[in-house]
Structure formats: structure tokens, C-alpha cells
């Protein structure tokens, strides 16, 4: 006799025989240990805790066990949905997990530029249902000659799924994941936001991203194009004055839009900021972090203040040596056999030359430098003249060092560059799911709450007070394309290698949600400008009990609602 599987593992409606193996969780008292029934060879049971057992058993055994007095419950393990189910629902692309798209736009006729670690073009999410590549062109900046590849060249060299090493290949996995979020073809139940857009791809060296943006827009010509940059740094003024940020302002316009991730540094203690009164002195401790790759420790930080003010700065090493930072226009050095320190004081930096800037670089000469050289640093700031009176400082990026503890350590103003520029739309992240399946079994992050801002998501505003990020989108956790043989494929708790999917988080993941959404907006209105896209998303953004009043530093103008944004055009 066949029984319907309702309540047992396997897809709903699947008819399961009584000897079919099902995966269950058994909750039982301590007596159960002595009462476990004999299991058949194909069955198995593992004790996970004092009272919880995981088992793969037949329906007959499950029924028998559920009737035992020592057993509290027998529950089937629930099948996880391995696609952007909640994320696509979260941006109102779908009303239910498996329901149809609520918008007719699919990105057709629009180009999506992705600047990232590389791309596994053997992945079906880069191809049409007929197997044709959806990539218009690819630039590889990691090769000395910066080779470019046309669609036909890529088709010839990416000969199939067994060859993950064609031009622009992705040893890291980040770029494949990002691109397939924005525009992946439907695959194993998942599809990107703009599934019919075509790609312009840049495998970048992470330095010449300015050239990458220029190349993509040149390739796009008059075709509407949105570029995604899930990358950034903090070595700059955070006021939109960096040349790359100004370049973005020049290159964007009708039908040309750039999206940048806000950054993941909210909780990384990379920013200090505070207001001084005359003669106030603050000494902020910091430490250098040991690189995980075994290279010699290195850190840089920049401090910014208004030129109307006057400050004295002093750096103290762990050994008690004091390096006076000279007056604007000069630099000072401190060297020993173990480290090199440089402190430069510059005036006239920042937007319109209105800022003073101190840049400190510290380089240890050996990867085996003792911890005593990493800890115990401090920067002392003394305010001589306070008109504006504010100082902001950033470490060059996450993972190089940490400020604090000190009251000046802030979670706001952790939005990075080039996200702080006026030529882009910057994107924060909120939680869309807290569980997923993986090669190491079911995973759950109990520390986060769906709907709430991601604890890592960098916050605005910019140093000059502009309201960035503009929007928040699902970025924790997103399941999308996995590059074969990549670093991500080896992270068993995240990857589902056999299904070519991986679950990761970051504003790297929320940015391409917005990039895909803008591709849909561009399909409807090819001449859309950056400001019009912001206006459409702002007017339609979701606000709720998590966001509170908007604009705010964590969510910007609220959560992305792509259907309402399209309807508003």
C-alpha cells in the first residue's frame, strides 16, 4: 500500500512506499538510548545531543519509533529551497516562493556590466536555455596584455562544463555568484533578477576599476547598461572627491548607471570620528592585524579635518617611541630593523580642497613580527583651533587593523569608496534568510533575524553628510551560482557543489539585486538616469518595523521593492 508523504521528507505530493528511506529528527527522553529498535542495513541513526537523534529510516520504522513511550516527536527534515526564494519575494519580484514573476520586464535589451573576481562561463546561469552564452564581451585585467574576448571567442574556449578554466575564469567564486544574482538564467529553480539581460564582464585586478567602468560603457555604446561593483576600500576622503568617484559622475548619464556595494565594515572598528573643542586632546589606540596569508603586517590610515581647523597629531609606537606628525606640507619617518612608519600631513585634499589630511602607513618588515609590535599603537589628536572641529579617520580596509576601544569608534560613516561617490547608487544589506542547505548538511545562523539590517552592512552618511546608502536589498544569505573548483566550492558549509550553488552574504550580494532591478527599470525606460532610478526606488521603498523612519544610515531610503519601482515609472 502506498501512503502520501505529507509530513515526511521529499517533495510535497510525492508518493512514497513504506520501505522508502526518509530523513527524520527524533526527540526523545534518555530512556530511548536503551530502546532503539534494530535498524535494517540501509537505515542509520546518529545521536546529535542528549535528546535529539538524526535518522534515515523507512516509514515503517518511523511509525514504530513515533509510538514508543520514550519518544516525544518524530519530525521529517524539511526540504530547503535552493534558490533566491525569499530574496525575490523580499524585493516583490514574486509574491510567493514558486509563484510567477510579478513584473513583465526581464532585462531584455539591457546590458549588465560586472567587475569582479572572474566568471565560470561553463555555468548554465550564463547561458540561454539553448546553451548559448549571454555574454557580449569579457575583459581580463589580470593578464598583462588585458585581453578582450568576443562572444564567439568565449564560446570556442569555454568548451563545456568540464572546462572551468576558460578566459576570465573564477578561482575565487565571488564574481560568478554576484553576476548570477543580477542576471542568471533560470537554473534548478533559481533565476537572477534580470534573466534576459546580456553581460559585459571584467575580471579585474581590483586596482584599475576605473578603466573597467570606462571599457564597459564604451562596449555598451547606446545600449542601456548598468554596472555592478561589489568591491571597495577606505583609503580616501569619503566625500565623493576621489578621482575614480568623479569619473563615475562623468561617465554616467541617461541609460548608464553604476551600482556599488556599501561595504561590510560596520562592526570592524575601521572608523573613528568625533567633534573637538579648542585644546581638547584625544588619544585613540589601535592595533595591527596579522594577515592570514602569512605576509608581513601592514596598515595605513587617513585622518581628515576641515582646513578652517588646526590640529596637532602624534603617533606612539608599542615601544613608546613618539613620532610627531609635522605641519601640513611635510612628512616624517620612523624606521627600525623591524618596521617602517611614515606620517604625511597634507592640506587642500578632499572635495574642493577644503580638507586637511594626515596619512600614516606602518609596515612591519617580517611576517613573524612579534605580537608586541602589533598591539599598543595610538594616535593622539590635539585641537588648536576649532571652527568645525571634526576629525574622521579610516583604516585602509577591513582586516588590516582595528581602532579602539575609544568613544570615537563609530559604526556610522563606515560606507566605503567608491560607494561614497555622487556618480553611483550605493546599496546596504538586510537579512533575507537564516538557513540553507550545504554539502555539510543543513546550516542555520541563529544570530540574525530576517528583515533586519545585516550586522556587517556599512552605514552612511558620507563624511560630508550626504545620504548614502540610497537603498537596502537582500544580502544575507543569498544562494546563487557556484564557480567550479573555486575557493567557495571548498567551503562545505556554504557550497552545494553537485547543484553548482553556494550561499554567501555581504553587500556584495545586495548590490547585484539592485543592479538586476535597475536593468528591469532600464528595459522599461532605456534613458533612465541615476537620479531617476534613485527617485523611483526611494518613492516605492518598503519601510517597516525594522527600518523605522527613513532615510537612515543602515537602510537608506528603505528596502527595495522592484515591482513598485517599475510601476512608478
Amino acid at each position, binding site marked *: 500500500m502506498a501512503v502520501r508523504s505529507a509530513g515526511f521528507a521529499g517533495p510535497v505530493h510525492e508518493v512514497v512506499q513504506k520501505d522508502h528511506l526518509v530523513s527524520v529528527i527524533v526527540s526523545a527522553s534518555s530512556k530511548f538510548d536503551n530502546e532503539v529498535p534494530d535498524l535494517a542495513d540501509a537505515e542509520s541513526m546518529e545521536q546529535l545531543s542528549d535528546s535529539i537523534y538524526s535518522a534515515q529510516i523507512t516509514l515503517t520504522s518511523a511509525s514504530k519509533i513515533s509510538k514508543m513511550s520514550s519518544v516525544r516527536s518524530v519530525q521529517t527534515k524539511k526540504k530547503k529551497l535552493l534558490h533566491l526564494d525569499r530574496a525575490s519575494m523580499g524585493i516583490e519580484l514574486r509574491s510567493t516562493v514558486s509563484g510567477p514573476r510579478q513584473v513583465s520586464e526581464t532585462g531584455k535589451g539591457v546590458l549588465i556590466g560586472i567587475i*569582479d*573576481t572572474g566568471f565560470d562561463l561553463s555555468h548554465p546561469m550564463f547561458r540561454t536555455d539553448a546553451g548559448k552564452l549571454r555574454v557580449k564581451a569579457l575583459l581580463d585585467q589580470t593578464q598583462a596584455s588585458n585581453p578582450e574576448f568576443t562572444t564567439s571567442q568565449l564560446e570556442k574556449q569555454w568548451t563545456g562544463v568540464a572546462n572551468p578554466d576558460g578566459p576570465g575564469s573564477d*578561482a*575565487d*567564486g*565571488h564574481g560568478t555568484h554576484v553576476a548570477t544574482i543580477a542576471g542568471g538564467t533560470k537554473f534548478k529553480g533559481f533565476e537572477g533578477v534580470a534573466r534576459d539581460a546580456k553581460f559585459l564582464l571584467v575580471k579585474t585586478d*581590483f*586596482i*584599475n*576599476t*576605473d*578603466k573597467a*567602468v*570606462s571599457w564597459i560603457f564604451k562596449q555598451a555604446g547606446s545600449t542601456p547598461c548598468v554596472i555592478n561593483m*561589489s*568591491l*571597495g*576600500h577606505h*583609503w580616501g576622503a569619503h566625500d565623493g572627491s*576621489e*578621482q*575614480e568617484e*568623479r*569619473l563615475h559622475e*562623468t*561617465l554616467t548619464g541617461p541609460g548608464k548607471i553604476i551600482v556599488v*556595494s*556599501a*561595504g*561590510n565594515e560596520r562592526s570592524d572598528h575601521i572608523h573613528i570620528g568625533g567633534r573637538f573643542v579648542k585644546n581638547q586632546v584625544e588619544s585613540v589606540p589601535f592595533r595591527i592585524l596579522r*594577515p592570514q*596569508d602569512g*605576509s608581513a603586517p*601592514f596598515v*595605513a590610515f587617513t585622518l581628515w579635518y576641515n582646513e578652517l581647523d588646526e590640529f596637532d597629531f602624534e603617533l606612539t609606537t608599542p615601544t613608546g617611541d613618539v613620532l610627531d606628525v609635522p605641519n601640513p606640507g611635510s612628512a616624517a619617518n620612523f624606521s627600525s630593523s623591524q618596521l617602517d612608519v*611614515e606620517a604625511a600631513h597634507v592640506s587642500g585634499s578632499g572635495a574642493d580642497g577644503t580638507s586637511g589630511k594626515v596619512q600614516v*602607513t606602518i*609596515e612591519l618588515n617580517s611576517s613573524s613580527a612579534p605580537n608586541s609590535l602589533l598591539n599598543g599603537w595610538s594616535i593622539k589628536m590635539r585641537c588648536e583651533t576649532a571652527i568645525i572641529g571634526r576629525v574622521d579617520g579610516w583604516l*585602509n*580596509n577591513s*582586516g*588590516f587593523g582595528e581602532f579602539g576601544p575609544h568613544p570615537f569608534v563609530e559604526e556610522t560613516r563606515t560606507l*566605503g*569608496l567608491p560607494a561614497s561617490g555622487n556618480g553611483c547608487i550605493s546599496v546596504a544589506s538586510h537579512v533575507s534568510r537564516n538557513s540553507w542547505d550545504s554539502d555539510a548538511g543543513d546550516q542555520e545562523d541563529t*544570530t540574525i533575524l530576517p528583515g533586519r539590517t545585516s*550586522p*556587517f552592512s556599512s552605514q552612511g552618511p558620507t563624511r560630508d553628510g550626504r545620504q548614502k546608502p540610497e537603498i537596502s536589498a537582500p544580502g*544575507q544569505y543569498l544562494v546563487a551560482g557556484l564557480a567550479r573548483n573555486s*575557493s*567557495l566550492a571548498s*567551503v562545505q*558549509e*556554504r557550497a552545494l557543489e553537485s547543484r553548482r550553488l553556494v550561499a*554567501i*552574504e*555581504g*553587500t*556584495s*550580494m545586495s*548590490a547585484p539585486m539592485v543592479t538586476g532591478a535597475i536593468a528591469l527599470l532600464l528595459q522599461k525606460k532605456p534613458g533612465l538616469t541615476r537620479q531617476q532610478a534613485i527617485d523611483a526606488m526611494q518613492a516605492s521603498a518598503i519601510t517597516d518595523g525594522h527600518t523605522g523612519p527613513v532615510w537612515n544610515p543602515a537602510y537608506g531610503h528603505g528596502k527595495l521593492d522592484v515591482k513598485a519601482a517599475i510601476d512608478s515609472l
Partner: protein
Amino acid sequence: MNLRPVKQEPPEDDSVAAMFSPNKDKTDDEIVEWLKLHNATDVEVLAEGFISACACTATLKAAEEVASVEIKRQKMPRRGAGRRR
């Protein structure tokens, strides 16, 4: 991919990627010519007023007389993959 060595202030003879914006006395074309004369490589005008090139320290310092100069900074992917758990 190694994203660690971010120290980008170049040794005297090594080139580093930088952006150049002409000051009021120079045009883009004049800056391009000037950079090529000073052995800069990969010189490219990305947009009006934005020139990308690789140059050594001496060239970078000299260029400050004719243009604003900014060393390109290394970015990092805004990834998750376990670092946040």
C-alpha cells in the same frame, strides 16, 4: 588572488597605477604627451579630464606640477563566505 599587499606607494623605480587630471594650464592631450615623454605606460584617457597611466615615483612627483595626481587604491570584494559568522 592575493589582496593583501595594499601598500601602493611605489619604490623609486617601480611603476604604480595612477589617475591624472590636467590643471587649468594643460589639456588632456598635453598631459598624455607629457606622460609618454616621462616614460609612463598604459596611458589612456578614460573621459575628459581623467587620464589613467602607470608611472614611477619620479614621474608622479613631477606630474604634480602639471596635473593633480592620485594613486589608484586596491579594492577588496565585499564578500561574506564565513568571515561574518
